[in-house]
């Protein structure tokens, strides 16, 4: 079946190659007009049989986004959701079984150079100039340079050439992907149970919360969270918390084993739901958390704060990239999809889950003023705030923890990362877990 449809695609492409190209040229001229209302019907004939398979993690592979894209674009977008390691595995081993990679930025280091993805010419991406400068230039709007600790998006966004098989040191005409989603993570706390204000990452390992702290059960992110805490407490100073040397890993793991032995950690969590339940049940009062998990605790009527900390946030992001095998019409459809994806609807959708869009000003067009002010402006909610599915998230009057977009994203201390010494880190992490 699949082979058949691929064959007929190719046939169609050959037959109509000339007309398609000329039409696309026309289409891009009217693209400004077309961006939000579907695309010129003249070439809808060519694309209506195209299906793009978008594969990503639960964070971003969201079915209603695919439905809206199918409605707006004239071709079909299918969404497939798989958990982290499994999706990475699929990208690496079966890259031709999907068309659109929706990739956690730290995983780009696994994927670039593996003949899985192809680069995107900057010229194909309509909203490059409006994309958050943190991604495009590695700096904040006020010109301050952003942290490059960990897998900073700026350091992996550019490829050396159209094949996209090598990272470039600085800006080039080729992108490994276009930035779609980002956020700043910090510790979640139960303000009613901590018994005192929490203001530093060091509180994660403070004896005050003995037996009431939790960590993410994931070598790369878990170790960065502890490194933030250890550095904040003053035990160690890291060269780069997101890319430690062996020596730094050894020292960190040794400290972590001591902390674990003292009974600091109640649990390690591996899934969103676990983190919510640990917090909601009061088993844990301080832990690394995701923004929607904090909200999920709060919607149960239980106080929970995504606590801003003096040392800054741990940042992360996702990019969208075409798989290697896309050519011709399908590749053109990918470019249309990517420009649609950053044109506002998906950005607004994920904004209501607490994440930021790669092009905030486009997301704004699809948010009510009250939503924009709450999620991006850090202002008290003018109306009740609902999640993308219409469920109440926050009562009017409350404001978002951490404040405005740039108060949060402007204070990234380290990015989620895959370290050069990840092989060694995995071994040592296993030792830590079993100790």
């Amino acid at each position, binding site marked *: 079946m699949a082979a058949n449809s691929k064959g007929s695609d190719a046939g169609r492409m050959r037959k109509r190659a000339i007309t398609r190209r000329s039409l696309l040229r026309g289409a891009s001229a009217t693209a400004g007009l077309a961006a939000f209302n579907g695309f010129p019907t003249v070439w809808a004939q060519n694309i209506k049989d195209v299906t793009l398979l978008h594969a990503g993690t639960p964070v971003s592979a969201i079915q209603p986004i695919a439905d809206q894209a199918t409605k707006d674009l004239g071709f079909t977008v299918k969404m497939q959701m798989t958990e982290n*390691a499994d999706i990475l595995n699929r990208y690496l081993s079966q890259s031709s079984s999907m068309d659109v990679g929706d990739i956690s930025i730290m995983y780009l280091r696994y994927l670039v150079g593996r003949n899985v993805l192809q680069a995107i010419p900057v010229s194909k991406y309509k909203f490059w100039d409006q994309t958050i400068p943190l991604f495009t230039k590695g700096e904040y709007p006020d010109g301050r340079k952003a942290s490059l600790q960990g897998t900073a998006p700026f350091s992996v966004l550019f490829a050396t050439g159209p094949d996209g098989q090598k990272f470039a040191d600085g800006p080039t005409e080729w992108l490994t992907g276009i930035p779609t989603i980002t956020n700043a993570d910090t510790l979640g706390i139960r303000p009613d149970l901590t018994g005192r204000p929490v203001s530093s990452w060091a509180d994660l390992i403070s004896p005050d919360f003995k037996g009431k702290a939790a960590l993410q*059960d994931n070598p790369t992110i878990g170790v960065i969270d502890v490194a933030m805490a250890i550095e904040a407490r003053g035990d160690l100073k890291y060269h780069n918390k997101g890319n430690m040397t062996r020596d730094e890993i050894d020292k960190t793991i040794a400290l972590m084993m001591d902390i674990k032995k003292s009974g600091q950690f*109640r*649990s390690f969590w591996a899934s969103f739901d676990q983190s919510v339940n640990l917090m909601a049940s*009061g088993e844990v009062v301080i832990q690394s958390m995701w923004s929607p998990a904090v909200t999920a605790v709060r919607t149960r009527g239980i106080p929970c704060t995504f606590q801003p900390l003096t040392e800054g946030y741990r940042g992360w992001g996702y990019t969208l990239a075409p798989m290697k095998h896309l050519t011709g019409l399908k590749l053109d459809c990918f470019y249309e999809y990517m420009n649609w994806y950053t044109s506002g609807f998906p950005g607004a959708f994920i904004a209501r889950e607490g994440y930021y869009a790669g092009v905030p000003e486009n997301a704004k067009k699809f948010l009510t003023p009250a939503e924009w002010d709450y999620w991006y402006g850090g202002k008290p909610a003018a109306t009740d705030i609902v999640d993308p599915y219409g469920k109440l998230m926050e009562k009017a009057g409350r404001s978002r923890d951490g404040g405005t977009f740039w108060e949060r994203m402007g204070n990234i201390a380290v990015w989620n990362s895959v370290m050069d010494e990840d092989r060694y880190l995995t071994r040592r992490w296993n030792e830590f877990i079993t100790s």
Partner: protein
Amino acid sequence: VTTSERAVEVTRERRQLKLPAFRLSPYAVSWLQVSPLALVLIVLFALPTVLFLVISFFDYDRTGIYPAFIFDNYRELLTTPTTIRVYLSSLRFAVIVWAITLVLGFFIAHFLIFHVRTGMMRAVLFLLCAIPFLTSGIIRTIAWIPFLGRNGAFNQILMKLGIVSHPLDFLLFSDFAVIVTYVHLFTLLMVGPIANAMAKIDPALLEAARDAGASRWRTMTEVIIPLSKTGIALGSLLVFTQVMGDYFVVKTMSGGQSASIVSTLSTEIQAMQYPPASANAMVLVAFVAIMVAAMMWIVDVRKELVS
């Protein structure tokens, strides 16, 4: 008995119909008989295992795995303190859980077979044992969390009754929680085979023992236990291999603070480190195979099953 008589009859009828006299040699018949299972085992077990074996000698880095023949993966596996710790910890869990489920399983089976009088009642009680197992193991595991938690049902009961003044923390995210869950999950695996073996014991034997003046204890140790040996061995095998191969229960109920052999393997897979994960899997397979062989050596399950 009636079915086999019927089968004989059918065969006789066939012979009388003078079907073509094509007969496979008994040798070929045996091969044909084992071939479906053999095929499944070869495709789903033997081939993947060979693949793991091959990959376990490969080299790797972040961007790929490279055909090679190096012992680094095994050396790293066998020299880190992690390995011995997880094997000891898994063995400890296996032995504790085995002992508890054996005692529980034996007495539950004994009750069902020798004390319940009517077959109807026995069927109902068996069903009651089995019904919880219609839900998935994951759900039965997670269900313990709200019960054992710091503010969970059990702690609240204890505090209401005034037995403790502070909630007991060791109930959840601890070895205790892991063992409770294992026992809950695996006791039935012990009950089934033992009950099966006990059901085959001729009640006349027990009467004979009683007539010969044996005490209940002596009947138990000299008649029932020896005759239930197969069931005990089979149940032990099931429980033992389940615990050694577990990943989910240890991870969930210890709150990720204890590791099992499989969970270290899983961490490696999550980090895309397939060669060391393969080496880890090979060592686990070898280890469990040796343990199982040892048990089989103590009780020849095959011989007992045939008789």
